[in-house]
């Protein structure tokens, strides 16, 4: 029996985070072998594996059959946000998403670090040791990129386009209220969104980027619908399994 029922409020809240981690990890891993240079290829895909590891740890709290739950659920049962469902074939967009996502993810884990659930606390403590590296990696990559004028303009363009989509990370599921009252999480999405905006403001000020950080979400606000990129990407994740759904892996 899993620790939390996936259909309970807390289960839904944890599933939303797990789905975000699963989707971002899968999208990051798409770059394996084709990232702009070998060292970053390795680093980025290693980060992707870390994110999938976080997803695994969270799924394990709500299901006994992780493969089925993570990969074969009905699309309406996912609770991922638009921002992690978007396909990004452009490296600059991917890098900016990495920075935005991990800045947010670090805050989300911090909100679980004092969880009333000892299991959730343990996973958060472990994830935070990796997450501090992910944020460092993302910030270094972006801060170095903006030193050249051409790359700086590309980063600014990506940031302006992606910032509204990133706000969908703070779209809360209905179960968040239960997660808060039971103490499983200690911060609301609203509170975390404020911290997120402030962290981004600090970064853009440090790097001298003239981009106002205002979070006006574009896209779904309840995590109940899927982005139009979702179906194709999910079909590609399930491609081999669909060849023979009865096979044992």
């Amino acid at each position, binding site marked *: 029996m899993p620790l939390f029922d996936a259909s309970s409020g807390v289960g839904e809240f944890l599933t939303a985070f797990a789905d975000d981690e699963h989707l971002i990890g899968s999208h990051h891993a798409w770059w394996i072998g084709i990232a*702009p*240079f*070998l*060292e*970053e290829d*390795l*680093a980025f895909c*290693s*980060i992707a594996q870390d994110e999938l590891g976080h997803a695994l740890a969270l799924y394990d709290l709500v299901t006994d059959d992780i493969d089925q739950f993570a990969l074969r659920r009905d699309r309406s049962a996912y609770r991922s946000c638009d921002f992690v469902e978007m396909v990004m074939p452009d490296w600059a967009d991917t890098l900016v998403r990495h920075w935005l996502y991990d800045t947010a993810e670090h805050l989300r884990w911090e909100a679980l670090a004092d969880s009333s659930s000892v299991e959730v606390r343990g996973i958060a403590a472990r994830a935070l040791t990796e997450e501090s*590296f992910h944020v*460092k*990696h993302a910030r*270094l*990559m972006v801060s*170095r*990129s903006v030193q050249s004028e051409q*790359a700086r303009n590309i980063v600014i363009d990506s940031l302006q386009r992606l910032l509204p989509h990133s706000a969908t990370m703070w779209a809360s599921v209905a179960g968040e209220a239960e997660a808060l009252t039971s103490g499983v999480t200690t911060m609301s999405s609203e509170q975390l969104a404020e911290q997120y905006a402030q962290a981004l403001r600090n970064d853009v000020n440090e790097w001298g980027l003239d981009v106002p950080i205002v979070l006006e979400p574009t896209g779904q606000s309840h995590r109940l619908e899927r982005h139009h990129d979702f179906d194709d990407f999910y079909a590609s994740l399930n491609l081999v399994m669909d060849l023979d759904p009865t096979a044992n892996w």
Partner: protein
Amino acid sequence: MTASHIFEVFLKAEGKSEFRHAGSLGAADREMALLLARECYSRRGEGHEIWVVRRDDIGVADTRDLSANFVKPHRMNDGKRVAEHRRSQREDE
């Protein structure tokens, strides 16, 4: 972003072992090199400590200085002749 310098990476495992050369990588600066070294050479915990050194900062000896007159049997004492001498002495006794 392109790699502008080559760095040599050294890893030290936990305990008393010494730093050993692990490989090289390209990075814009030392901070980036340390970050990338972690993922390229120590993502499975191979290193407890990491050094990165810019290849340009490494002193490189002229190989001709090293290979000159390297055949110097008078400097190569593997103890064989002494052992043989002592063995023959023992046999004489």
